[in-house]
């Protein structure tokens, strides 16, 4: 039996159940799934995955195989307007879809040509997307998703994986000796750069002082930033992004194509042979 439940405010409510499948399942054995990394930008045909999802802090009980919809109250007709997400139980899959205002298809006049042509006034309806925002596989204990932003209201706490650095962290990062701010303030740092600081800044702090030295030298060579003695001049969000890219070693030389390159998206290549 396949079931559909929805979240009203903070509480899940029962909607319906039926024998037929509600959604077409995706065959993830034929899809490239990548362990979540904030530094990786997904291609259209890729998905992020989180392994051992049931052990994560943001796991929700609706993913449990023993979850009974009999525990839920029935949603009332007035509550459909304030649904924030749908959850579909389909075999061993749990599909989650965020509800946005665009998915309500009320007040539409359509021509229905399935039989005698007729004009149909759309009643109150919600579109169920063919591709869910997140899919949890109970048997594999894997969560697949494409964007953290879309599912952070469904799995509270998951946004910690791609968090925005706090003002304190930004201040601390920009206070490094090798950074000199020019007409640029710590308060005006953009969201994307704050996310990068949270990710790359933390990685940098974990390096040995020897490696830190090397990284600064690398940044001098590759980033194209104005360097005054040993300090980088940061005048805008773009400059800061360049510096952060350099600190993440995203500049490289493709020796065969003889081209200097920037990697706008990176992830570990687990299939490659390890360098000795």
């Amino acid at each position, binding site marked *: *039996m396949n*079931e559909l439940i929805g979240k009203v405010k903070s509480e899940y409510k*029962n909607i*319906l*159940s039926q024998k037929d499948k509600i959604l077409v399942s995706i065959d993830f054995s034929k899809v490239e799934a990548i362990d979540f990394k904030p530094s990786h930008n997904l291609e259209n045909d890729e998905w992020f995955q989180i392994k051992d999802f049931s052990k994560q802090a943001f796991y929700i*009980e609706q993913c*449990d*195989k*023993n*979850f*009974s*919809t*009999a*525990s*839920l*109250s*029935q949603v009332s007709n007035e509550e459909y307007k304030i649904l924030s997400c749908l959850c579909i*139980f389909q075999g061993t899959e749990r599909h989650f879809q965020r509800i946005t205002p665009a998915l309500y298809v009320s007040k539409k006049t359509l021509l229905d040509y399935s039989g005698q042509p007729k004009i149909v006034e759309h009643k109150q309806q919600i579109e169920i997307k063919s591709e869910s925002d997140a899919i949890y596989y109970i048997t594999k204990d894997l969560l697949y998703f494409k964007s953290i932003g879309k599912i952070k209201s469904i799995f509270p706490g998951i946004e910690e994986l791609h968090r925005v650095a706090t003002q304190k962290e930004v201040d601390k990062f920009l206070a490094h000796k090798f950074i000199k701010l020019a007409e640029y303030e710590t308060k005006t740092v953009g969201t994307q750069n704050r996310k990068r600081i949270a990710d790359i800044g933390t990685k940098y702090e974990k390096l040995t002082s020897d490696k830190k030295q090397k990284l600064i030298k690398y940044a001098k060579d590759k980033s194209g930033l104005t360097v005054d003695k040993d300090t980088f001049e940061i005048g805008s969000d773009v400059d800061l992004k360049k510096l952060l890219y350099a600190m993440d070693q995203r500049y490289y030389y493709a020796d065969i194509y003889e081209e200097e390159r920037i990697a706008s998206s990176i992830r570990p290549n687990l299939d490659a042979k390890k360098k000795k």
Partner: protein
Amino acid sequence: MNFTLRLFLTFSSVSFFVIVFLVQNQINPFACQLGCYYWITYIAYILIPFILTFISLGICKLLSKSSLQKVTSIETSNNDFLANYLAFFFVALSIKEMPAFWVVFGMTLMFTFVSRVSYFNPIFLVFGYNFYYVHTNENVKVMIISKKKLKSPNTFEAMTVRRINDYTFIEI
């Protein structure tokens, strides 16, 4: 649909109230025609709640389904309704006038309808159903009406139940 069904279930559950009143006051419109077989009317009266319950069980098959995967506690409650029913009987027995009957019956119907245990229908027991209070895995207490003998949460098998209301489910 749901409202009508709930009203029907409630009515079949409190129909004994009417029957007791009719019998107590010897209301028998066919007494003249039946002569010494006047008691046939009373048998017909008694059959009414059974027929109503039988029909309402049929209607329950139209209710939406929910799943019950795992329970953490099972408690039988077959006998709990007896107090309610005795109260029904005694009240019905003591009513003599029609206006009083309608007022009391109306109130009983209303309160049974709005209360979440409105479906304590003893005739379900006659049809082989049992009443259980169970705590689901999510620690929500619900009532399950089922023909199965539920004993221990450990041997509980996942079941598909029909939703009568948010707290009452029937397995058909």
